[in-house]
């Protein structure tokens, strides 16, 4: 919470002026019963018409001044609240955009979006209402009491008792019901879950003939919800009657005592009326105050959530690093032997062609392991390989084998937890992040385009790209025909998330976006899955044409996509199960054989017959 106050600092003036003007308004309001008393006692009591007019004009004047004060207060409150939330939103958005991949994974996108939108809106209205009401309500309540004191000390004591009792009742009921309302919300969520399940799973539920059981389940939850609602309802239904009784009991006391005092000449009729008026003002404001407090606690909770997002990053990074160091030593010993065992085909490869590959030192993975934060197991274990500049590297393996994780390490999206990655002999962690990523062209698994035009999307890859460069990249990515087919060509509109393009079109455009910067390293993370075989083949061919400049990593499930690669890395459950060319792997890597033959069963037959 404190973290957020920084953003309110700039509006210090507004934050002081808004409540101040509210205070003024409330004070003017408190004067009204006094004026009325004067009208009754002096005006009516002495039949003084002039006095009545004077006091009446006074009331109108008070109202006018009150209005002016209130309008000023509303303006400052709105300005402070809106200004604050604008600053906060910009800061939060900036912070989120700067989060590391690890932090982003942990935070989750949908939460981030809620924080930026509805949570900040809640905080804004919380700040606004607080500035407006937080001083006004207490001032009216206590002001009324003080005014009562100025009229008569003994009668004012009734206020001294009534106010705390009312406060206890109002706040007590709210405190009791608030957590109960949360429970009601939970009950509603259950009803919602059953309803949704019965829609999404309708085929399964009907196939198993579970309709009756589901009806029963729904009704149980439904009745449970009603029960909870009734329970809370019964408690909150007490609020009005109980406060009504308290206020009127006080009124009864005031009338009786007032009567006695008038009788002995200590009070006038008008003063009794004034005191009664003050009493009636208290309740309304107390209820407002209680509502304000609920709003404030809600806003506070939202503010805390927003603040916690702002805290992600720095702190986490530190503790993360510490934890890793500790674990490293213990695991080192056990895993080493295992890794050697696992890479049976790796051994043969390294042994056979070690000499030829020695100078291949463009990119080196040296005993690299990766464990995501919060994960129980390592995602990658002791991966080692070397890549020559201009090579095409295929990465293949089952789902969850760590293919994407492996290529995500190259642009430094995640820090390695063990081992090191060397690019041109220099440790990856020593590179400047922006500099490193500028050299890479990454085509992520999920093909996303952004709202704008095709041109604006390509400019993501290279902000100063020329028209010629764009067409060249499109051509390489087999996307030229897509753009040419559009009426607006490069300036064709792209809808949010690129919805107005098909999956295959999006994939080719994201490839073009990566190619336009003429990357040194191109990473295609299962980026051709929506392409047909022919286009996929053409794409690979065109990528080979830029071989002199670009080293390419292709992640795929399709054996056909990586078959031609200079080196194929076979991953199995985070371990390197094999490395080599297609022929080498087919000869001696069982995992690769399994994958390959499951896609080309015909060839297995051939092998079986031949063998």
């Amino acid at each position, binding site marked *: 919470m404190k973290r957020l106050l920084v953003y309110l600092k700039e509006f210090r003036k507004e934050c002081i002026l808004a409540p101040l003007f509210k205070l003024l308004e409330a004070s003017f309001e408190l004067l009204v019963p006094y004026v*009325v008393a004067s*009208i*009754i006692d002096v*005006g009516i009591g002495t039949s003084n018409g002039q006095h*009545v*007019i004077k*006091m*009446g004009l006074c*009331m*109108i004047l008070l109202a006018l001044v009150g209005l002016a004060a*209130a309008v000023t207060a509303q303006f400052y409150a*709105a*300005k402070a609240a809106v200004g604050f*939330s*604008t600053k906060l939103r910009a800061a939060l958005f900036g912070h989120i*955009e700067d989060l590391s991949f690890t932090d*982003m994974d942990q935070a989750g996108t949908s939460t981030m*979006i809620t924080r930026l939108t509805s949570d900040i809106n809640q905080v804004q209205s919380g700040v606004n209402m607080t500035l407006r009401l937080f001083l006004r309500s207490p001032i009216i309540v206590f002001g009324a009491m003080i005014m009562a004191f100025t009229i008569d000390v003994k009668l004012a004591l009734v206020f001294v008792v009534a106010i705390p009792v009312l406060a206890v009742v109002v706040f007590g009921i709210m405190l009791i019901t608030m957590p109960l309302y949360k429970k009601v919300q939970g009950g*509603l969520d259950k009803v*919602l*879950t059953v*309803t949704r*399940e019965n829609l*999404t799973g*309708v*085929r*399964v539920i009907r*196939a198993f003939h*579970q309709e009756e059981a589901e*009806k029963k389940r729904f009704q149980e939850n439904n*009745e449970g919800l*009603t029960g909870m609602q*009734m329970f809370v*309802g*019964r408690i909150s*239904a007490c609020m009005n*009657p109980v406060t*009504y*009784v308290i206020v*009127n009991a006080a009124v009864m006391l005031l*009338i009786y005592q007032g*009567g006695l005092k*008038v*009788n002995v000449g200590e009070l006038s009729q008008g003063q009794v*009326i004034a005191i*009664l*008026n003050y009493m*009636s003002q208290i309740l309304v404001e107390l209820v407002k105050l209680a509502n304000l407090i609920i709003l404030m606690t809600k806003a506070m909770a939202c503010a805390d959530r927003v603040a916690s997002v702002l805290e992600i990053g720095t702190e986490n990074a530190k503790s993360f690093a510490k934890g890793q160091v500790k674990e490293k030593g213990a695991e080192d010993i056990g895993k080493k032997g295992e890794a050697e065992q696992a890479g049976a085909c790796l051994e043969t490869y390294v042994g056979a062609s070690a000499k030829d590959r020695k100078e291949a030192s463009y990119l080196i993975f040296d005993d690299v392991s990766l464990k995501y934060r919060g994960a129980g197991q390592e995602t990658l274990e002791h991966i080692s390989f070397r890549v020559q500049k201009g090579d095409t590297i295929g990465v293949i393996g*089952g*789902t969850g084998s760590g293919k994407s994780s492996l290529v995500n390490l190259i642009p430094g999206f995640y820090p390695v937890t063990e081992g090191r990655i060397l690019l041109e002999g220099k440790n990856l962690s020593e590179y400047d*992040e*922006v500099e490193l990523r*500028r050299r890479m062209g990454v085509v992520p698994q999920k093909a*996303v385009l*952004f*709202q704008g035009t095709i041109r604006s999307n390509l400019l*993501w890859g290279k902000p100063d790209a020329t028209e010629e460069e764009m067409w060249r990249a499109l051509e390489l990515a087999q996307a030229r025909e897509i753009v040419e087919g559009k009426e607006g060509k490069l300036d064709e509109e792209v809808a949010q998330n690129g919805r107005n393009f098909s999956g295959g079109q999006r994939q080719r455009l994201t490839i073009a976006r990566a190619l336009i910067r003429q990357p040194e390293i191109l990473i295609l993370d299962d980026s051709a899955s929506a392409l047909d*075989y022919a286009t996929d083949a053409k794409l690979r061919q065109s990528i080979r044409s830029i071989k002199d400049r670009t080293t390419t990593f292709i992640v795929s*499930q399709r054996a056909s996509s990586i078959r031609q690669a200079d080196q194929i890395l076979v991953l199995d459950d985070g371990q390197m199960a094999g490395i080599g060319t297609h022929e080498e792997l087919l000869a001696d890597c069982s995992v690769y054989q399994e994958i390959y033959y*499951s896609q080309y069963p015909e060839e297995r037959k051939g092998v079986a017959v031949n063998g």
Partner: protein
Amino acid sequence: MAKTKKTELALDRKVTWRKVFQYIGKYWFMVVLSLLLAAVTVALTLYIPILTGDAVDLMIDKGLVDMAGILNLVKKIGIAMLVTAVAQWIMNTCNNYICFHIVQDIRKDAFHKIEILPLGYLDRHAAGDIVSRVIADVDTFADGLLMGFTQLFTGVLTILGTLIFMLIYNVSITLVVVCLTPVSFLVAKFIATHTHDMFQEQSRTRGEQTALIEEMVGNQKVVRTFSREAAVKEQFGEINDRLQKCSLKAIFYSSLVNPCTRFVNSLVYAGVGIFGAFLAIRGGISVGRLSCFLSYANQYTKPFNEISGVITELQNAFVCASRVFALIDQEPQVPEDEDAVTLGEAKGNVSLKKVSFSYLPEKKLIRNLNLDVQPGQRIAIVGPTGCGKTTLINLLMRFYDVNEGSISVDGTDIRHLTRGSLRTNYGMVLQETWLRGGTILENIRMGKPEASEEEVKAAAKAAHAHSFIKRLPQGYHTVITEDGGSLSQGQKQLLCIARVMLCLPPMLILDEATSSIDTRTELKIQNAFARMMEGRTSFIVAHRLSTIREADVILVMKDGNIIEQGNHESLMAQNGFYTNLYNSQFAG
């Protein structure tokens, strides 16, 4: 057509009203009670200021106070207050009871309708939309109804009561109040119409910003990959600044409503004070009465403001109600025959005679399809996407009814069987896995809730699911979320197979496509399938060559027709569409 389209979305006003009253009617007693209590509450609430005024009138000046009279009035106030409090509490409880039970009834009816709606309806409508009707819309309706009950009646009664009391005691002051109050509404209305555009602007800008947030936060990794953070922040800042400007306007101007109406009320108050005072000087009204009038003047505009709020809320509530009622009013699936037969353990003879079917009348899908399946046969269905493979499953399970022709199991038309007994005779594993929120155990037990844990384990073993379940944190008692949570697609598929394994029905329908599963896991699933199919009539939507080749009958579908039919060898010999399809799998 246009008309039915409309009723699917919402019902018209009149029908909605009738329906709402139908639901309320069940609680008529409570409603009458609540109304009576409201009348009592309002009358007494208005009576107390009069009593107070009377008491004030009894304390004229020093030595001129009628203490006995005051004590009497204080007693009256006490009684009135207690009666009011009790009446109010009972009324509140009544209102809660009525509203929450009506809501419960509506939800129940809606859910029961969901269970018997034809699949066609559910397929055509987004689940999210239906859920929001049953949950959010009903909730809004409940809020509106509750507000209506608690504030509309009392509000109207308060206005009427105040008017009557005021008229009884003094006509001229009443006229002052009645003439001045509309000013307050005019002011509120004036502000509301003028801020409307500002709010529109605000929500438009907000929408624009949310879209950007969704895009840039949702794809934050891409932003970082291309180091576009600065550019994106700039874009955000531009919208943010615009939002600041229009938000400030909207919030400030709309916040003027309260001070302005308060100002108008103060004017009314002052007016009553001045006018009343002159009247009192001339002896036209007592001081106590005047104070009573002042308190009326203070409260008089409140119910008006409340009522206008309630009416907007109620209109909203009725729109929501009409959406739920539109769902409840949907035509259910064709009810079962009264003499529908319960199918026991089927032998597995399935025959389709001259079956025609289409989802849309103008777009024919399946035409004149004939097929006779012997018990224990394995039928593979192949063909390009959209050829009607899934449709065939829909018809076999009777998720949809045929338009023409008939489907029969063991010689009985499935329309003469109970749906439940027909469906439990099939074990169905679909490509899209569906699991429910709950434990693994509950999920596997779905079709056979009485199964013991041992049986469940045996089924899981048979489905090759046991080994991964064992490794989960709580084993079979691990709670998974609705979408399967951390389970992989393949694991979810294995659970679905285990679910069917537990029941082992005599016939099987398998949609074996597993595009998101890697080929090695798929192999395991294949083995599980193969074990299940032994001795059972099976329909398999086939993608894998091994399945196709080993099938007894291969149906080659194209555009809703079976264009070729036979086993692998005979079809290959035909050198037709199948041969082409088969060979194309190796083209890549």
